[in-house]
């Protein structure tokens, strides 16, 4: 097996042996179970005259609640990715774990890419598995399924991968805790900057709007989150918000348009740039 895949396998193996995967599995099952129960309660809500809510209203409430749940799920995924990626390189440099391995015929680029691949596989599988389970549970509880479930999961996974990549880049130079904290703060700031951009849209203030645009370019986490939101919104809701004009766009939990193709291309470039930078940073680091 090529060294890059050995490093990827080792990363997955460590997560498994250290029971990270088991912990995530148990927590996910609990969260999905509880949320399914909660979503099911929506179907039992009645109007003041005692009649049940019409299916369209159940779908609308469910879609909005699902956006909030997904926001939290996405946050937990990004947080976990940052915490795990923070010490990914620096932890092993500081402990000496990499010394004996780097004396083997292994390129540092193979270490970086291998570790990223291992964690990226975990993040993607977890996002797909846990997210898919949640959607299935919501469908079972309410009969509602978001219009674009595959795109939704892809955007949520990509959001996690952004944090993973940023955490790993910082980890090539900074200690684990510093890299993890910076990645998390950057993620929160990017989200806040996205909200500022929304406010700018609402107020038709170009400068504030630009804050959102620039933050989406520097750290595309919030931009991807908007893609996830769009994938969850029913067409009727999108049409209603479009009718509101700019005011309909000034909402951090709403998206009227899907992410532009240019942005998605930028995201691919962003990943390539961050990985290249990570490899360069680690190759020039003295151990």
């Amino acid at each position, binding site marked *: 097996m090529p060294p890059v895949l050995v490093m990827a396998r080792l990363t997955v*193996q460590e997560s498994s042996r250290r029971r990270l995967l088991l912990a995530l599995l148990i927590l996910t099952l609990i969260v999905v179970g509880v949320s399914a129960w909660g979503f099911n309660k929506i179907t039992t809500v009645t109007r003041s005259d005692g009649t049940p809510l019409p299916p369209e209203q159940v779908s609308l409430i469910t879609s909005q609640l699902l956006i909030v749940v997904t926001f939290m799920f996405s946050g937990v995924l990004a947080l976990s990715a940052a915490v795990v990626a923070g010490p990914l390189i620096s932890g092993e440099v500081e402990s000496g774990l990499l010394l*004996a391995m780097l004396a*083997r*015929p292994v*390129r*540092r680029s193979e270490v970086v890419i291998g570790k990223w691949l291992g964690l990226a596989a975990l993040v993607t599988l977890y996002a797909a598995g846990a997210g898919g389970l949640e959607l299935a549970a919501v469908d079972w509880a309410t009969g509602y399924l978001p219009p674009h479930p595959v795109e939704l999961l892809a955007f949520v996974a990509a959001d996690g991968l952004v944090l993973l990549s940023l955490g790993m880049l910082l980890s090539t130079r900074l200690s684990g805790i510093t890299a993890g904290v910076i990645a998390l703060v950057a993620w929160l700031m990017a989200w806040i900057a996205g909200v500022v951009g929304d406010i700018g849209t609402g107020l038709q203030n170009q400068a504030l709007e630009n804050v959102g645009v620039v933050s989406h370019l520097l750290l595309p986490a919030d931009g991807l989150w908007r893609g996830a939101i769009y994938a969850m919104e029913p067409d009727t809701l999108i049409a209603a918000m479009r009718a509101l004009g700019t005011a309909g766009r000034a909402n951090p939990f709403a998206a009227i348009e899907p992410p532009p193709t240019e942005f998605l291309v930028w995201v691919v470039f962003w990943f390539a740039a961050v990985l290249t930078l990570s490899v360069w940073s680690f190759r*020039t680091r003295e151990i």
Partner: protein
Amino acid sequence: MAELAEKTEAASPPGEAAGTPAVKTVELTKRFGHTVALAGLSMTVPRGEVFGFLGPNGAGKTTAVKLLLGLLKPTSGQGSLLGRPIGDLRTRRRIGYLPELFRYQAWLSAAEVLALHCELAPLPRSSWKDEIKTALETVGLTDRVNDRVGTFSKGMQQRLGLGAALLGEPELVFLDEPTSALDPVGRHDVREIIRGLASRGSAVFLNSHLLSEVEQVCDRVAVVDHGRVIASGTMDELLGGTAVRVRVSGLTQADKNRLSQYGRIDDEGDQITFANLDAERVPELVATIVSMGGRVYEVAPRHQTLEDRFLQLLEDEEKA
């Protein structure tokens, strides 16, 4: 910052440059900011020899090993391992390394750690089983083969690291303080392993400040201090002199100071050791002590130990 040495694997056929030394450095220098960690290291380690690299803490021993393995980038100078420039990936297939800061995957078993190193070396998969079995037997961990490394004591982890360094019968093995966590039995085992490597024709680069250990196994030694080699040669060349221990009473401190004309003195009260004294001068020394009013109870000439020589070298260096 320039990229660390990580050369391609091209054009390095097996057995290439067999007549070249195991290690060769020319003015290899490393600075960390204003601190000089290694100042112009020039040395040659022939193949098949056990080479002791001695020095006090912070002398630059580990820096030298890391430079040779491509983990650090030299500020200036050159070096080669087995005839290829340092950092050459293909050469690393023929090298074993036990770091001073040894740490292995706590979540893997001993056999899995060794299999990982077999894979990275890379060794043919068909040989892994025998390689792992032999390595575990050599370092005395056969009964812990399936235990997680996380349950190992520090000494056992160092043994495991030594086992990993021995995989694939390397032509050159770097051992950086290989007995720092070992008990006397473990230290004895390591000496036997080093002798075994030498008898097989492997060169061993032994970083250590345990002088007795070096004295027992090394063919050649270099003493490094403040990043510079202050002496080097075979053990015979380095330990040519005689040390003389004198048990004496009735000498004042001034008398003892005057006795320094006979060379470096290790003063332990009524026991004085002259680190390097020609045996022919012993009668003269005794006469001088008696003339000072000293009472001599015992005069014991013995071969100079590496410790005597080492301390003398450091003291000379300090004076210089």
